[in-house]
Every structure is written in structure tokens, then in C-alpha cells.
């Protein structure tokens, strides 16, 4: 454990931040540009995981385990989330035979 932390600390924190931000941005952009609901789910997962990584990095740098604990919570939540998301996707697919989010526009104005 100790070694891992020191190994992690070898890379400057800024790198983690930049990397995670980039990852997060990719996730956001993915959500924006994709029309396929599954792809969007994946992008959202990317966003969550970038946050996870960031938390882990901070946790390591600060020698504070709570960040890593949180990461586990997030993973659980993300799993639940994706389960629910997929369930909804199936229902939507059944009714409209597509998972393109642009057809979801009955409700408007």
C-alpha cells in the first residue's frame, strides 16, 4: 500500500487533474455528440470514472483514505445506475424499436 502511494505520488498531481479533466471532457463531448443511448451511457460512465480517478489521486496525495472509500461507493452507484439505464433502454426499445435518443420528442413545449 505504502509503495503504491509513493509510486502514485511520483507523478505530479497536476497531471492527474489534467488527465481526469480531459477524460471528463471526452465523456461530456461523447454525451453531446452521440445519438445512440448506449453510447451515451458509456460516455456517462467515462465521466464518472474520471471523477473516480481524480478522487483516487487526491486520496493518494493526501494520504486520506476517505476518497478511495468514496470511489467504491461511486462504483456501486454507477453499477446500479447502469442497470437501471439498461432496463429503461430495453423498455424504450420495445416501444419504439430504436435507441436513438432523438426520437424521444413526444413530450415537448
Amino acid at each position: 500500500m505504502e509503495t503504491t502511494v509513493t509510486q502514485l505520488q511520483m507523478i505530479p498531481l497536476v497531471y492527474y487533474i489534467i488527465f481526469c479533466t480531459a477524460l471528463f471532457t471526452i465523456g461530456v463531448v461523447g454525451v453531446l455528440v452521440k445519438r445512440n443511448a448506449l453510447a451515451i451511457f458509456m460516455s456517462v460512465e467515462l465521466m464518472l470514472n474520471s471523477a473516480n480517478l481524480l478522487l483516487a489521486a487526491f486520496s493518494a496525495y493526501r494520504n486520506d483514505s476517505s476518497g478511495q472509500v468514496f470511489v467504491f461507493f461511486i462504483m456501486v452507484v454507477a453499477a446500479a445506475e447502469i442497470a437501471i439505464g439498461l432496463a429503461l433502454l430495453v423498455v424504450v426499445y420495445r416501444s419504439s424499436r430504436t435507441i436513438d435518443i432523438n426520437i424521444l420528442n413526444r413530450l415537448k413545449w
Partner: protein
Amino acid sequence: MYAIITISIVAIIVLFFGAFGKKKVILPIIFVGLPLAFIINLMGWNQSIHYFNEMYIDDNFAIAFNGVLIFITMLIFVFARVYYKSVKRPLEDIYALILFSLVGGLMMTAFGNLVMLFLGIETLSLSLYLLAGSKKSDPHSNEAAMKYFLTGSFASGFLLFGIALLYGACGSFNLEVIKQYVVQNQANIPAMFTIGLLLMAVGLAFKVGAAPFHFWIPDVYEGSPTLITTYMATVGKVAAFAAFFRLINASFSEVDFLWKTSLIVFAVATILIGNFAALYQDSVKRMLAYSGVAHAGYMLIAIIALKGNAAGVLLLYSVSYSIATITAFAVLMMVRKETGSFSIKSFNGLAKHNPTVAFAMTIAMLSLAGIPPMIGFSAKYQLFVSAIEQGQLPLVIIAIIGSMVSVYYYLRPVVAMYFTRSMVSEPFEAAKLYKKQILGMVILLLILSFIPGLIILLI
């Protein structure tokens, strides 16, 4: 804390009985369990117990809001009884989900730690995603659930990233620690902290439905089954506001320059967009959804005001908004059941044969519009007073302009009910089902109208 446990146990029991198809015992269990939770919740009054290393704090703020949330949920179940009367299935899943989401809501009001906040939000939201889509055969419901899920999880991502950045800046999820950090570093706040705070604010703004993150609200509210809409519009919103308020109040009150302007912009946009967009709605359900947006704008003012008795005002506003909204939605459920439509036209001439229902709707509308002497007025005016004491006169003026606009659309159902020729010539069948409950809501609303002072001074 024990209220959460109680409710969770009740939910599990409900699931259990549902699995064995005991439809008849489910609701009675809930009606025993929720009041029990309510009482257990109140027992912690004035004790301010901290649980789990300050993850969960049962202070008066939390207890008051939790009491409100549990109480509202009880009301929802009262209507659930009639709403789902014709459904043969035990519906244990839906009930359990409601109870679970309530647990999430309770966590949101009492968190002492950002982890708890996140968990609460997600517990609430995940249940709501499912509930929104609970009418599987209805494409609208599906669409609503999907939209809610997509936007909601997206917003969760921002919230989470914000939490991560904040954690990076302060080194802790604990609100107290963050506050101390803020107090110490007031002069030079790092950009990371600011971004984190703002992203969190965005995430919460999404949850409360503040513009420009309100877009999910009208669609989701309209598409979801009405009972679930009612639940989302009340418990979901109140819990989110309690969380928002708690977060800002506990940790960031010293750095209001960081978030105040943004929140003011949110509030102004929310009030204006909500009220104006509601003007042109034909569907009463969608109109109420926009009204919910507009009210979110008003409640944001309480957060902006923050000092003084803003918490009490927020509580009062939550109560007034929730009770009136439930009443309105209850009438809507009834009308929908009878006419099959949410259109304002289906309200035509309601007063003639269903005077009680029409009266209830009127009272609810007047209260939402903030016309004295309804509780909605007391709430609004207390809100304005606390905002104005913090020097937010321009904001209040905009809020009042919004209220002017709102009078029009709140009046439309009233006018339709009382002054438009009816399509039907006899009392609604459904009215028999709903009448007592709705009457109870009206009485509640009227009683509350006379005790706003009590509610405010609670916390």
C-alpha cells in the same frame, strides 16, 4: 437515522409481501410504518445527534425537513390508494421504490458529508428514474424515464466531478472541515475549489430544477404517471432544496461571492422561464410542471438569502408548495381518470357538479399564485422579506413580476371550472373516490394558512 432504518425495513417488508401477492396488507403496512418513522424522526428533536463520524447529522433542520418529507409521502400514499385502485397487481415494487427514494431524500436533508449527499441524491434519483417509467405500456412514461435518466446521470457526473475537485482542494468530504478550510483560505481560494463548488451547484441546480438546468422537468413531469409526478414535484424537489440549502449553509456561507451571482442568475431565469412558459400550456399537468420550475426559482431565493430565518422560510415554502401541489395534482388525477385528458378543457364546468373538488383546486391555485390569505402568500412574502433583508430588492422585484404573470395561468383552471359551460351533466364517478381525500387536503391547506409563523420558527 432510525427513521431511515424504519422506512427501509418497511420497504423491504412491502417487497416481501408483494412477492407473495398479499395486496391487501401492503398499504396498511405502509400506513403504519410511515407514521412510525415520522414519530421516530421527531424523537430526535433538539438533540442534534451525529452518526457515523458526522456522515449523518440529525439536527433540527434535518428533522423538520424529514418530517415534511415523510408527511408528504404519507399523503402521496393516501392518493396512491385511490390512484391504483383498479390495478390488480400488488404494486409492491412501486411502493417500495417510493419508500426507498424517500430514504434517499432523508439522507439528503441530514448529510454531514459529501459522500452522504451523493448517496442520498443517487438513491432518490435512481428510484425516481424507475418510477417515472413505471407505466411501462405508456410511451410517454418511457420517454420521460429515459430523458430523466439521461439528463440526471449526466448531471450526476458533474456533481461528482465537482465533489472530487472540492475534495482535492480541501482534503475532506466533511462539511465542517470544508467550512474550516473556507474560513482559513477565504482570501485565496484556489480555482479548483471554485470549479468544484460551481459544478456541485450545477448538479444540485439540476436536481431542484433551476433554469437553465430545468429542461427535464416539464417533460418528465408530464410523461410520468401523475402520482409519481406528484411525488417527484414534492418530495424530490423539497429534498433537493434541503440538500442545496444545507450544503451552502454548512460550508460555503463565508464565500458567498463565489456562488451568489450564479444562483441569482439561476433564480431569475427560473422564475421568468417557469412562469412565462406556463402561460401557454393547454395541459394542466404540464402547466403545473412549469409552475414547479417557477417555484424552484422562488425557493432558490431562500438559499440566496441564507442568513436569518431563511431555513424556516424554506421550510414554510416547501410545505406550502408541496401541499398545494399535491392538492392540485390530486384534482388532476381525478379529472384525468374521468375525462382521460389533462387538457384544461376537461376542467370545464367542474364546479357545477363537483363543488368540493373545484373549491380544492381553487384554493390550491390561489395558494400557488401567492394570493392572500393562503399559505402560499405567507410563504412568498416571508421569502421576499428575508431576501430583502439581505439587500436583494431587485431579485424580489423580478420574483414579484413573475408572480404577476403566474396569476394568469393559475386562474385558468379556476375560470374553466367555475365559469365555463360544462361538458358533463353529472358528478364525476371518480369524484366519489377522491372527494374525501381532496377535502382533507383543503382543510390541511387552510389550517396551514393560519400557522405559517409556527412553521417558520420551527428551525
